[in-house]
């Protein structure tokens, strides 16, 4: 089932085109990462599908229904910063979300335990650290066990410990089988948590699909030798090796999937090239992202 479908969505802020005919589909159970540099249109996209921004053109459907407004009750979301009243404590702020979602009165013990805020539940929101605020926001998104959870830069502004905690919580949510949509420019975060990814830049979709399909099957090689010029010349003469770059006397290049590294090493040895460094690894999302957004 399509949880979210976006068709040709555009948004102009005056003369600036923030979204340019964006298309995207999120299916039930997917953990979709929306990736893009700052200002690429990630938050604008989420703002439109969550009803706070008006699109210039195009449309979107929630749960295959064009009248999507009523479906927002089935979605838990935070956009950019945690938004709560500063003089209310955690329980009181969560209770406001509960009332908006028309859910019967309930205890928030489990949610506050999940985000490790039980001990500070009676403190006013304004006394919380940024990490605590962010975790309370995550708890708020889970009120009423929503079918879809949306996060926008959930680890923004957090210290390393806070980032690790939030990531752990996000992973737990994803493991519960929820449909998750997460906008981020932190590629490592997306690669660790998401099953699918959509890459956007300047409001346009550049790539979309499962993380596996976005990551090419090529092998990345890192090589170095006592005679770097000879090594470089040899590598350039191998037609199956592409995208050759050099940095700090390390040559980085891409070889086909299941490339026989041992045979390559032996062939170079017969040519008198002595390798001092040889690493073969799979491509990382960051590398694909940079290649896609720069091309």
């Amino acid at each position, binding site marked *: 089932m399509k949880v979210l479908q976006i068709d040709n969505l555009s948004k102009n802020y005056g003369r600036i085109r923030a979204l340019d005919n964006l298309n995207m589909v999120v299916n039930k159970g997917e953990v979709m990462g929306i990736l893009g540099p700052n200002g690429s249109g990630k938050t604008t996209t989420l*703002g439109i599908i*969550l*009803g*706070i*921004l*008006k699109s210039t053109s195009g449309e979107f459907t929630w749960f295959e229904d064009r009248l999507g*407004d*009523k479906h*927002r*009750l089935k*979605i838990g*979301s*935070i*956009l950019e*910063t945690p*938004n*709560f*009243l*500063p*003089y*209310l404590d955690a329980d*009181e702020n969560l*209770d*406001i*979300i509960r*009332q*908006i*979602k*028309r859910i019967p009165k309930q205890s928030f013990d489990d949610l506050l335990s999940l985000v490790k805020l039980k001990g500070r539940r009676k403190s006013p929101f304004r006394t919380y650290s940024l990490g605590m605020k962010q975790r309370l926001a995550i708890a*708020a998104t889970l009120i009423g066990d929503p079918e879809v959870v949306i996060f926008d830069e959930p680890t923004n502004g957090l210290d390393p410990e806070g980032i690790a905690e939030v990531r752990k919580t996000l992973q737990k949510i994803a493991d519960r089988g929820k449909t998750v949509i997460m906008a981020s420019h932190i590629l490592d975060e997306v690669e660790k948590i998401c099953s699918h990814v959509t890459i956007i830049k300047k409001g346009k979709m550049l790539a979309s699909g499962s993380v596996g399909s976005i990551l090419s099957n090529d092998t990345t090689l890192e090589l170095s030798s006592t005679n770097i010029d000879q090594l470089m010349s040899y590598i350039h003469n191998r037609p199956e090796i592409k995208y050759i770059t050099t940095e700090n006397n390390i040559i980085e290049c891409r070889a086909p999937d299941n490339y026989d590294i041992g045979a390559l090493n032996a062939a170079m040895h017969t040519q008198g090239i002595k390798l001092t460094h040889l690493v073969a690894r799979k491509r990382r999302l960051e590398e694909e992202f940079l290649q896609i957004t720069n091309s």
Partner: protein
Amino acid sequence: MLRLLILEYSKFRKSTVIVLLTIFFLAFFPASMYILSLIPDLPNYLISSKIFYTFPSVWDYLGYAGNWMVFFFLGVLVIYSITIEVSHKTMRQSIITGMLRKEYFTSKLLVVLSISALATLYYIIIALIIGLFNTSNPDFPLVFSNEWAIPRFFLMSVSYLSFALFIGFTIRKAGVAVFFYYTFVMILEPMLRWLGHRKIDDSIRMHFYPMNATEDLMPLPLYQYADFIRNDKINFDYLLGYPVATITTLVYVGLFLGFTYYNFNKRDI
């Protein structure tokens, strides 16, 4: 409806600013009547200070005091209840969480109507207490011979608070909104009226301004002594009559609310 009101109550019951404004209103409204008793030399046309506290004129004097109190404290309370939601982004979070924009607007409109109703109830209670203590032989017809003062007070409150709602939703920044609210009512609109018409007796048209029409629902009772004060027969209207003021105010309330709703539905939050 009740759900939305409870939601609003949950949001603001612990807000220091809202609590203080409410206390100020509750305290200063009856206190303003006490201040009248401190005036040492009454003008001769008033005969006695008893006129402030006896039926039926207590409705007029207390109503005029309420005119200022509602404008001064409750208007700001409504503005604050909107702008704090903008500054802490709970307005947008409410929509994200699942409220329809129509519901959000309705919840704020209900706040306006409820506060107006409670302020009117308070007005009735104070008027009855002051009047019953100071009027000798207060019979029912005398007590309530007040020219529809109670619905007029309610409409006056709704009008000020609708204007505050309009300012809050349109300007969205607390300081600027409150400044504009006070400035418009006390300076800008009077300036517009005088610049537009130059002379006080120029035309009845100069009274058809939103806040002036609202004020004329609960006017300064001393206007009835205008002939005495000027020592002359005045042959023009200082005020809109109550029926005209009522219709004019209703039209402006409709415009404020209509524009606010339309704009809130169209714009990004």
